């Protein structure tokens, strides 16, 4: 149910719209892209592969967004605490 790997589409086959060749750090396999027929991947796209089928496209933008959120974790809070420590302005008092 769960083992699915990000892989890059490196080749498509004009005569066979359900087939693609993907690569994961130098390992290549043919996969079926039939589940993405509503928005087929193009060469260079990254897809999530499970049992030889592409389940979903991977959004680089969302991935970066998530990583940024993670990196920023705690920083907003830390900044807020520092400001509160100065005793400046209103801080929420007692919730």
């Amino acid at each position, binding site marked *: 149910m769960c083992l699915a*790997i990000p892989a890059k589409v490196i080749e498509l086959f004009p005569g066979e719209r359900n087939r693609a060749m993907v690569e994961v*750090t*130098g*390992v*290549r396999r043919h996969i079926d892209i039939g589940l993405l027929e509503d928005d087929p991947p193009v060469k260079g796209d990254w897809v999530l592969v499970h049992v030889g089928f592409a389940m979903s496209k991977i959004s680089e933008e969302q991935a970066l967004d998530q990583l940024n959120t993670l990196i920023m974790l705690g920083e907003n809070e830390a900044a807020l605490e520092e400001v509160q420590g100065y005793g400046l302005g209103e801080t929420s008092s007692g919730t």
Partner: protein
Amino acid sequence: MNGVLPKIRFRDPQIEMSHGAGGKASRRLVEGLFAPLLFGDSTEPLGDAAHLIVDGARIAMTADSFVVKPLRFPGGSIGELAVNGTVNDLAVSGARAQALVVTYVLEAGLPSEILEAEVRAMAKAAACASVVIAGGDTKVVEHGKADSMYITTAGIGRPIPGINIAAASVRPGDKVLLSGPIGDHGITILLARGELELEADALCSDTRSVLPLIEAMAGVAAPGIRWLRDPTRGGVATSLNELARDCGLGVMLWEDAVPVRDVVRGACELLGLDPLHIANEGQFIAVIAPEYADAALQALRQSPGGSEAVIVGEMREEPSGTLLGTNGYGGVRAIDMLVGDPLPRIC
């Protein structure tokens, strides 16, 4: 704590493939059936090679068998595995191979040119490893009974001066060295079988003699070499579990330090396999006393084929008999030895 092995019983009703996979089932067969009946009451940990005294001379002796499908694969063939595997068994027992004898069990119908190719490969590997093939035997069995060809070998050698390998001599604080990247051989074979329809460029078996590297290490660190093993079937995880059991200490493996080629890693991720359980045919693990570890590592790195050697862990007092792995952020897991053959998974 050191060296006393718990009694294992072999009660399996039939032989399964897992008994040959190098993991727990194999261990149960050897320790539960073969050892008590063949080796008497000896409590010595079982190794691949035996050191005997014959007429006052110390001789090391080993035997091995080679069963692989397909016979030829990127980087080698069954013939090379047979020579290198035997030389390596002796090398990790602290001995320099001098001569091998070889037996072939051939399947009727095997094309002669395939046999000739293997024999040539063996001759070449023997020359490369500076070992003499001194004799052998041949049997032919009916079609369908030998997967084309099975090879068995027996090798003898002389101990390398200064090396004394014993699990009992391993101490907490000793360093664990690995000679190079892991998983190349097992993944090459898996891909070469063609059943999983994966392709990979630039991946081949790592089969080679590790004797030169071990001798290079012995040249500068012989007194500090406590234990050696070639992580073949069952992989590094199985070998380190055997070490932990045999010496009664714990092994801490720094997983981020273990070298794995990208392509091996990719194949393992795709199939849900752990590189630590995959067979290697040209690597070894060495446990070295801390005061000798750096010198041993440098000697390896400066030798041909040793440039990727690395310290991957150390021995701990606790938990006894256990291999643990840790990663860069402090998570810890226990790493068990292989149960049966590594199977691809989807979950």
